[in-house]
């Protein structure tokens, strides 16, 4: 029997070949293989994850435990426990998926917190308390905050995000959680889009304050929005340009999706005033007056020096007048 000729080689039309090629060339996320191999890898990796999670929890004055208690779930404890169970009895293949999933969470949280404890002295001497999270954040694309560890399944990633969140009362955490005003409107509160990375970095600072200097906890500092340092990278500019183009075409929904992609992809958000402005216009285009007002308010209150303020105030005044009438 002769094999049919595939359409990819001999398509009835270019359109169809393009469709098939687009599907054939769709790349799985790079993290997929890493995450799968990590999970499949070995029980020793899981055991190490559990052990490092446990040691980090104790070495950092149970910072992770505190965060787990104040967070949505006690994920660090769960990760440590499952990591330990992996060390003792992970031979049960039927349980492999579950064990490795939570063990992976332990790996990440343990690595973050444990690494932070090891570097406490260096960080304490070099840290500029008002800007440390921003300095620490590289001006390069990083994954979405709900994805602090791309190797982990989504539930594990969420757990990790909770595990590395510093204890309540940390001024760094308070600043970080306010660092992107967009998260309040466009992302679930528990994910804390860009700040999660900052939170992870600020954990050792909280631990340092408690363990080495025993300083009384500072009162929460007032929120002062600070633009991240450094220029935007070319991919950032390209994506914002693409959003601007789609906005010009009148594709509001696609613009909003591109902006969301941008915000998920880049932390810190270098072009935030521009992004807010485009979001405001796209929301307006979509007839989402509340969304447009929200973006405009953020521009006016958080970036009063930006060139977009005039248009934002105009929109706010217009809507205000309309509301009064």
């Amino acid at each position, binding site marked *: 029997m002769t094999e*049919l000729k595939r359409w990819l080689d001999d398509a009835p039309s270019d359109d*169809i070949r393009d469709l*098939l090629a*687009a599907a054939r060339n*769709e790349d799985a996320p790079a993290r*997929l293989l890493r995450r799968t191999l990590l999970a499949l890898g070995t029980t020793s990796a899981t055991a190490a994850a559990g052990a490092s999670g446990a040691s980090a929890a104790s070495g950092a004055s149970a910072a992770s435990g505190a965060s787990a208690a104040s967070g949505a779930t006690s994920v660090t404890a769960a990760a440590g426990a499952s990591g330990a169970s992996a060390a003792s009895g992970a031979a049960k293949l039927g349980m492999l998926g579950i064990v490795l999933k939570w063990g992976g969470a332990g790996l990440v949280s343990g690595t973050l917190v444990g690494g932070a404890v090891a570097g406490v002295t260096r960080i304490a001497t070099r840290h500029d308390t008002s800007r440390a999270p921003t300095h620490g954040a590289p001006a390069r694309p990083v994954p979405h905050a709900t994805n602090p560890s791309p190797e982990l399944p989504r539930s594990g990633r969420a757990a990790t995000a909770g595990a590395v969140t510093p204890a309540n009362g940390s001024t760094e955490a308070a600043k970080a959680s306010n660092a992107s005003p967009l998260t309040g409107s466009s992302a679930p509160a528990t994910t804390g889009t860009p700040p999660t990375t900052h939170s992870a970095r600020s954990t050792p600072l909280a631990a340092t304050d408690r363990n080495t200097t025993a300083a009384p906890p500072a009162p929460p500092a007032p929120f002062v929005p600070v633009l991240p340092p450094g220029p935007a990278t070319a*991919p950032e500019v390209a994506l914002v340009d693409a959003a601007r183009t789609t906005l010009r075409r009148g594709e509001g929904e696609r613009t909003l999706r591109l902006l969301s992609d941008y915000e998920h992809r880049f932390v810190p958000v270098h072009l935030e005033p521009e992004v807010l402005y485009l979001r405001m216009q796209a929301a307006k285009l979509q007839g989402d007056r509340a969304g447009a007002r929200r973006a405009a308010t953020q521009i006016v209150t958080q970036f009063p020096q930006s060139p977009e303020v005039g248009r934002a105030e105009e929109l706010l005044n217009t809507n205000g007048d309309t509301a009064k009438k």
Partner: protein
Amino acid sequence: MSSDRAADFARAHVEFAWRVARRLGLAPADAEDVAQRAMFVAARRIETVAAGSERAFVFRTVANLVSKVYRARRRKPEEPEEAAGELVDLEHDPEMLLEQRRARDALDAILQGLSSDLRAAFVLFEIEGLSQPEIASALGIPTGTVASRLRRAREEFLRIAARRGLAAPSTKRLR
């Protein structure tokens, strides 16, 4: 089971599993979960997978997992999946990526118009490049049935594509 063998299996087939899950209608993030679970299943049963039928095994596993996802959601596979959460690959031109996404969306919409039997045969042959005997093994049907399903899938595909203004139906290349 050798963990090395399971790792090798995952390296060879996890992307295939992900793409199949995508073409069966899952969003990227859900496809990731399914692909990973498929590799767990493969790791457990790797001794039973005959040489040369790995992709057939992966397809069957993924198809089962996908149907479980839909059952769990109590949703029909025909409902379009929300692609939110898909990260943009910024190493390439955003416009080009948008075009590719548009093309995939159009393809998925056409595939959703096919019955699940035809869709499976079409995806495995036209997109994933499996041979007809491999498809027969994956779907548990005779090779002759694969050929007839492919022929019907192509006809149906062209009909739907033409309705969407994507291609003029042409019968000369159906066979």
